[in-house]
């Protein structure tokens, strides 16, 4: 609780500073002072209030050893209350929107890997029930080239053998802390072509839905081109869903994904 109070105090200071600075600051208080930020905010977050908030924690590696698989973890602090959606944006990617996550019955936390074109801030904008956006971020350095080269399964053609296959596991007895008691990890086989490689049109998983055994939707994910080939996602839950999970989804060519995972 004490830690949360500190976090809340720090973030309100942050917000106050950001607010005061906004009047004269073309970066709108962006700690990374990134030129595209103001336009990105308008395009993807709309007219609602958006503030930088330390309670949205985005973790990544200091540098992208593999620019085609940059691991990112997003977690919204419980003090933010109910989270409607989380939008992940990457300033310096040719395609900036990576995914939109609606946690629904799950915790406001998600891990995944994505393709990074060059060194950039990686942002998570968390929309709370009052409509406001709370924005956190991290900086990932990179040698570049993640979005404009084909993945391994596209190069060797092996994607056709495994398209849409899902593997996964529901983990309990979690060592990862903070109110999480179960985690679903998933891997969906898909080439996830960005459309930025010569002669290879965009071909990517665009919707995934996590459902319980009774087919009730627990979490919903909109996925875009920058998510990595054969993406791996982690979804966290406060209560372990009983009786296994169903994963259903589509790609932008209309292929269906449907699998049961325990």
């Amino acid at each position, binding site marked *: 609780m004490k830690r949360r109070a500190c976090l809340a105090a720090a973030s309100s200071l942050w917000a106050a500073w950001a607010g005061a600075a906004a009047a004269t600051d073309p970066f709108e208080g962006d700690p990374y002072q990134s030129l595209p930020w103001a336009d990105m905010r308008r395009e993807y977050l709309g007219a609602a209030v958006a503030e930088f908030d330390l309670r949205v924690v985005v973790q990544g590696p200091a540098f992208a050893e593999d620019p085609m698989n940059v691991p990112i973890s997003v977690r919204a602090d419980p003090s933010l209350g109910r989270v409607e959606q989380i939008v992940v944006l990457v300033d310096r990617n040719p395609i900036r929107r990576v995914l939109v996550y609606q946690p629904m019955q799950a915790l406001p936390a998600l891990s995944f890997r994505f393709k990074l074109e060059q060194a950039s801030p990686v942002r998570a904008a968390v929309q709370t029930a009052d409509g406001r956006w709370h924005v956190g971020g991290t900086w990932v350095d990179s040698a570049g080239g993640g979005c404009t080269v084909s993945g391994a399964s596209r190069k060797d053609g092996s994607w056709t053998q495994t398209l849409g296959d899902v593997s996964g596991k529901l983990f309990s007895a979690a060592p*990862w802390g903070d109110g999480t008691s179960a985690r679903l990890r998933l891997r969906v086989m898909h080439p996830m072509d960005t459309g930025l490689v010569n002669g290879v049109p965009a071909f990517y998983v665009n919707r995934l839905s996590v459902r319980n055994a009774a087919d009730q939707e627990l979490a919903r994910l909109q996925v875009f081109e920058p998510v990595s080939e054969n993406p791996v996602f982690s979804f966290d839950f406060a209560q372990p869903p009983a009786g296994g999970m169903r994963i259903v989804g589509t790609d932008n060519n209309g292929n269906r994904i449907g*699998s049961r*995972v325990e």
Partner: protein
Amino acid sequence: MSAAGGAATNHSGWRHWLLAVMPMLLMATSALAQTAPRADMARFDYRLAARQLAPGVYVVEGDNADFSLANGCNIINTGFIVTGAGVVVINTGPSKRYGEQLRLLIARTTTEPVVQVIHLNLHPDYFLGNQAFADVPRYATAATRAGIAREAAAYETNLFRLCGDWMLGTETLGPDRDLDVAAGRWRVGQREFVLRELRGHTASDLVLVDRASGVAFVGGLAFSRRIPTTPHADVSAWLASLGSLDAMPLRTVVPSHGPVFDDGSGLAQTQRYLRWLDGHFRAAAEGGLEMNELLRAPVPAEFAAWAAFQTEYLRNVAHLYPRYERQALKAGQTLR
């Protein structure tokens, strides 16, 4: 210095003092060497030095660090051996400049000409100095030659990015003939070398032992006080190879990265690290950890203190953890 000198009242006393202090000085210099690059960036001078490990057998030591502008990307131990019928060069360093400076160093050290170059694996600092050895036959295993042909362009780009003008004029000139490792023996002049092709660090890890001196060049199979690099690693094959090295009667061992050793320590360190990594990554994957959590999980103090930990461990996780993750996930049952 004058106060210390004053304490030494005569010549033998001075020598006595020096003998007592020398090991401390050496320790201080070697500790310093891990942080202060030996290269002179203003003059693009790697300041290469040949250290004799046995008569006619030399190591040219690089910094025990990660690639950086300050060290000119010289983090490799290369070597050369005088055979009586010319010099055999083992690996040629990260750049054209390095190759040229290595060749000058060899010419300052021995009157014999360079007659052979040998590459122990496909990684960039094993061959990017080759332009200085264009007139000499350059040997590697077939797998290493294929690997260099495949990766060279990416290596050049990456090292130019990391080390800038140190790399000026560097272009890949690959090994130009296959080394016959099946025989296990290679004779040049008065030297007989034992050759073993192992794997695990890469798909082909060559080990060269000079029979007369017992000095072994083990390439990337051993990392001495340095986090191993893993872009082409197969951990279980690597551990098996370290087992077969253990069974060989090696004396002085030159790893490609980190200090030369003669007590087996570098082999044992690499073994300890890989065993820990294998168990740690497997347990993490079976516990459902994702990559950022693994990156931030505690690492034993011994390993965290090794050279290049900050960057190389992150790379280890990026290269190897996905394989453990895949093993921990089960195939879903397809819904129709």
